[in-house]
């Protein structure tokens, strides 16, 4: 472990910072995240983005694995209904998400830790606002209960 890593790990014990994963579709939410940056809308650095072509690519396992591996919150971002680059991948994501929420609850995790948002490529401001809000939600919930175990 590098020195920096060690420091962060140490800090974590004193002062918990959420670790948030954002799985963003390439055409809308990923673009919105870029837009937020280029317009200098700041949001909590706790949020880290992984790019996928479409919200329809997101497998429920991705989210479960993220939670099992310690993420405090997972947000899936896609295009607004009707605007999907691949016609209807976001509808598929929506259907899977309902199911996903139930599984998460059964795992004993607060369902608020997973979230699905439609953020268009032009909505840089919305991206930042959603991230702020989600970060606040996760902070209220505290660390991922699975991580404590």
């Amino acid at each position, binding site marked *: 472990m590098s020195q920096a890593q060690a420091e962060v790990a140490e800090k974590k014990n004193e002062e918990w910072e959420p670790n948030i994963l954002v799985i963003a579709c390439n055409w809308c939410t990923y673009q919105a995240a870029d837009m937020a940056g280029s317009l200098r809308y700041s949001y909590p650095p706790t949020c880290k983005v992984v790019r996928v072509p479409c919200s329809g690519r997101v497998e429920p396992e991705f989210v479960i694995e*993220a939670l099992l591996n310690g993420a405090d919150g997972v947000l899936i971002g896609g295009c607004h209904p009707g605007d999907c680059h691949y016609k209807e991948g976001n509808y598929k994501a929506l259907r899977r998400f309902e199911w996903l929420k139930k599984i998460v609850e059964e795992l004993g995790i607060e369902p608020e830790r997973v979230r699905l948002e439609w953020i268009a490529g032009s909505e840089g401001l919305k991206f930042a606002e959603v991230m702020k809000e989600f970060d606040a939600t996760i902070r209220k919930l505290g660390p991922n209960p699975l991580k404590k175990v």
Partner: protein
Amino acid sequence: MSNDEKPRIGVYICHCGENIAGAVDVKAVAEFAKTLPDVVVVRDYLFMCSDPGQELIKQDIRDGLVNRVVVAACTPRTHEPIFRKACEDAGLNKYYFEMANIRDQCSWAHWHEKEKATEKAKAIVAAAVAKARLLEPLEDRYIELTKEVMVIGGGIAGIFAALDLANAGFKVHLVEKSPSIGGNMAKLDKTFPTNDCSACILTPLMVEVANHPNINLLTYSEVESVEGSVGNFKVKVRKKQTYVDWDKCTGCGACLDVCPPKARVPDEFNEGMSLRGAIYIPFPQAVPKKAVVDMDACIKCGGRDFSGKEPRLSKSGKPILAPCEKVCPTGAADRTPYRDPNGELVELNVGAIIVATGYKVMDKHHFKEFAPEHPNVITAMQMERLISATGPSEGKLIKPSEIPKLLEAKKKGEKVEVEKPHTITFISCVGSRDNRYHTYCSRVCCMYMLKQAMILKEKYPDLDIYIFFIDVRTPGKDFDEYYMRCRQLGIKIIKGRAGGIQPLPDDRLLVKGYDAEIGKPVEVVTDIAVLATAIEPNPTLKELARTLGINVGAEGFLKERHTKLYPVDTMTEGIFIAGCAQGPKDIPDSVAQAKAAAASAMSLLDPGKMTVEPLISEVNKEKCTGCGICVPLCPYGAISLVECEDGKKKSEINPALCKGCGVCTAACPSKAITLHGFTYDQVLAQIKTIARWPEIPAE
């Protein structure tokens, strides 16, 4: 380079001037990157995308130091192609590349939290490296492109698209559902803002289309089905039955007059203001100038019904023929041979499709408040016919209620006194900007009302002309000057849309309006009321869009890929749109769009082949159980169940149709489908790295 060679990852961190280095401690990130598994080289540079920056990467590849590249810089949406090319140039498969976005999504967003930004940058780099370890080499795909284009719609937009393509050497199939090309423009008397005679500028173009060696003109034809994708569309076009032998028909028109009164129906070309026979040529300048029989109207004189029966004989022993076939000098109207009512199916192979199906003028009957049944309440398109030299009154301005009288007299060869109008009133935005019908502005109504008013006022200075407007919209080139000319002619422009038309005891009308400028209700007794009804999508457009696999917007017009940047493209590659099918527009804009669509089709097809990124899904036949879940999920219909050698049905993905969304990959219960570039392992590696952060990924 073999696939199972152990990854040797080079991490290249960009300062982007101060854009990254201003918030992220680049040196710290570099030090951290060195600790990541399989990372063998870490470099940082002021501008990694610059020539010397790219050279750093290329040199390491050439020196055999690295076989995977991670660039931590800006967004892959803009720079991934640049770095991929650098890898390729140095001899590395370009899909051995991954990008870490530490500018747009890190330094810029967290500018004032430098320490946290640096930590986040490390996490992003770690995730990218995790994915890079699992990258696989991929080969670009190429598809051959058919250098033929189908243009649907023979109006002014379709004509220009077809001519531009044909002149550039492309084979064009121009499909028009009416018997003649020309579209709505052929009906217009004059065109703003120059008041050119519409037929005079359009007819030569129509003739050019008909004579062009590269244009295959398919009139009276409709697209029935479209399969395939960009570069290779397979199209079935239905050539409707004309019931006239077009090879023999010379367009002499002899048959038109003999068709009996019982078989006469409202003439589409004259917007229903006159009658045509069941056998007809749409209009005098029609191209091709050929007759067709409208079987819904035909009364099959003498039992002559194209069923293949020989004619009955009269008492004198002569065959009993229908008047049209009797009079036809070339035998084109011969009703003896069997003619298939279904016409003929033509198959085309085209690389691109341009949809230019135009528009429909909204019907007046919706507007009860404007006495739509009254013969002297007409649409603006009817006014075009009324003032056109080829119209029902041959261009003489008369009250529409007098047309039957005039036509009757003409038939008898008599002269007749008809009433001429003294007052004409135009009402704008009828059906446009109206929540009950169309919320959009039809864009051309202001100008065509002004045009008609101007033409009328210049020709008949004694006419009183009123135009009731919500507001006058004249944003085109030379348009406002045109409007001002109208005002100066003494045409009375009243701000305020009229609210009603009351028929008077004679055949005149009382228009009730409100002059917002004076602030009082106003009334006009008018001879003709012209309703500027909206431009509507063609009623069949939705169906056509479905056939083509393109979208229509909420208002029913075809949806462009991007309003500003891709205005003539659709979401389906290889299909372009032009003219009023995309939304209301005037002739200059339709022509401009048609030329843009033609140019887009040319630049797509001209190279003869196109590269397709291999980032698409593939089925592992061994894992596939043939459950078929994926088949209906695919938005492009790219997946089908095919029988394999072992006799079992398994999924197969058509690489030409797959766009790489990954919906099937995510849904496959047996993980038999891989989305190249975003495989399960690759994405999961990234996710786990971030989820476990700040724990360092294990070896």
